[in-house]
């Protein structure tokens, strides 16, 4: 019990647990699942935005978008690496993703239907992700916390780029302004769902809070996001599609409506607009690449054997 004790004290003191340290099996398993889901989200998240690279309307926007989607692949790589420090295997996690046994953020099960979606994803989706992730920069597991610090920095950059795209579009033609508003209308509610179900319906929160791998409740983070976003929408000149949204001076926060939680559970349950498409896309890329990975492995083995032979 000495080890467990030390672990508990480390965590309670807001110190970092490192790969070499002893940790409870439940902590390890929960972390692997959480980090893997986050990694999967980065990888699946490449698709909705990647959908517009070939059609980006200016070369500058094409470069920005391509670089952003590339960063997401990079984030996926850090995060899979963090799970490996916990003893997970990337190939195994990938299998779980493409067979539907592990989830990713449901927001990526919505389609991108106009170039404004690229901006709105940067603004709202990355914005919500940052609200979720900033507290994780202080999470108890060292490699995860360090990955999150780097990721949050890049996400903030992406968020500013998304917002800047929307600002530019709102300063363009009427058709562009309409495109932005239409996109905001589609993404607002799914963005609010990114914080997960209302606290009353959320499970597993308590233990994760205690382990410092979750640091705020869903509703706290959702409120923070809304309070942060409303003035940005005003500055942009778009309406947020919620008739209940208004400042509540008593609470010092905005009141707002609830997303359609039935829809949320349907999408989480696998029946969103693009769930099948996203997983099938990932599966195809993985399967089409099988012979390449096998070749790379065979080649390394041959070269290693040659070095061995020479030695």
């Amino acid at each position, binding site marked *: 019990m000495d080890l467990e004790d030390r672990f508990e004290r480390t965590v309670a003191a807001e110190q970092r647990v490192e790969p070499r340290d002893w940790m409870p099996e439940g902590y390890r398993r929960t972390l692997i699942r959480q980090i893997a889901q986050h990694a999967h989200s980065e*990888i699946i998240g*490449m*698709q909705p935005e*990647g959908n517009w*690279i*070939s*059609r*980006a*309307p*200016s*070369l*500058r*926007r*094409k*470069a920005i978008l*391509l*670089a952003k*989607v*590339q960063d997401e*692949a*990079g984030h*996926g*790589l850090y995060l*899979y690496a963090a799970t490996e420090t916990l003893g997970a295997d990337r190939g195994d996690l990938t299998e779980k993703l493409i067979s539907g046994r592990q989830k990713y953020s449901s927001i990526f099960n919505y389609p991108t239907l106009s*170039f404004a979606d690229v901006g709105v994803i940067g603004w709202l989706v990355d914005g919500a992700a940052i609200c979720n992730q900033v507290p994780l920069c202080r999470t108890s597991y060292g490699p995860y916390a360090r990955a999150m610090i780097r990721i949050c920095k890049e996400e903030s950059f992406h968020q500013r780029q998304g917002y800047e*795209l929307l600002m*530019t*579009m709102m*300063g*363009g*033609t009427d*058709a*562009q302004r309409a495109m932005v508003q239409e996109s905001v209308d589609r993404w607002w509610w799914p963005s609010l769902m990114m914080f997960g179900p209302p606290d009353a319906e959320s499970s597993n929160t308590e233990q994760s809070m205690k382990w410092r791998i979750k640091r705020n409740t869903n509703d706290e983070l959702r409120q923070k996001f809304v309070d942060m976003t409303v003035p940005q929408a005003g500055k942009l000149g778009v309406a947020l599609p919620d008739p209940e949204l208004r400042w509540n001076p008593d609470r010092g926060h905005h009141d707002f409506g609830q997303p359609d939680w039935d829809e949320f559970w349907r999408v989480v349950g696998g029946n969103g607009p693009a769930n099948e498409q996203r997983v099938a*896309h*990932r599966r*195809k*890329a993985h399967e*089409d*690449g*099988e*012979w*390449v*990975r*096998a*070749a*790379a492995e*065979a*080649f390394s083995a*041959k070269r290693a054997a040659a070095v061995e032979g020479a030695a």
Partner: protein
Amino acid sequence: RADLSAYCLMLGDDALVLAQRLAEWTSRAPELEEDVALANIALDLLGQARMLLTRAAEAEGAGRDEDALAFLREEREFRNVHLAEIECGPFAGGDFATTVARLLVFSSWRLAQCSRLRASADPVLAAVAEKSVKELAYHRDHAAQWVVRLGDGTGESHRRMAAGLARVWPYLDELFTAHPVELRLAGVAVDPAGLRAEVDGVLDEVLAAARLARPGDVPPAARVNGLAGRDGVHTEVMGYLLAEMQHLHRSLPGARW
């Protein structure tokens, strides 16, 4: 100046069109590391394209910018070589081996070209070439590593790598065929005919390391009335590439991005 503009378009379109093709791999590469690497290469080429199209627009002096050139020209006005536009995967017409075969040939050729262009009498071209050389050396090495790995990997990868080389080989000839514009711009442009020995040397070296034979007696891809990419005469896939690339830009005239 019209010649300088046309020459910058040639080099810029090569980079732009191949960047567009490479970006098709995004979220489709055989492993995540390769997704990152191909996106990097596409970004480098896109960067080169932007500088070159901007220079072309300046030299033209008609008030166009990089976006007008990329999104509002018709197919017949694009000056890239066919090697950049053909489908080599991830979609129909290729696979990862074909993609690295194209990338090896293209980047070896462009590297040889840009190395010489560093001495161009046009200071902008010289500067772009200086920057490009570093990038292209990385692209070439990356492609060469894959060609070697796949050539000397498994039976299947060897077979695919050989097929990929055979697919792109007919497009080599065009790379070394000078266009009148290139010949007229002595001192500014590079005569591509002079690059052949260097590029052949690189390819032979890589193929040897990969235990692959140089594709045998492959006739060069035919020209149409003697014309090819540098003259704006492309292959049938080019129209589809441009439709996808340009549609949104053309759909919202006067928009700001």
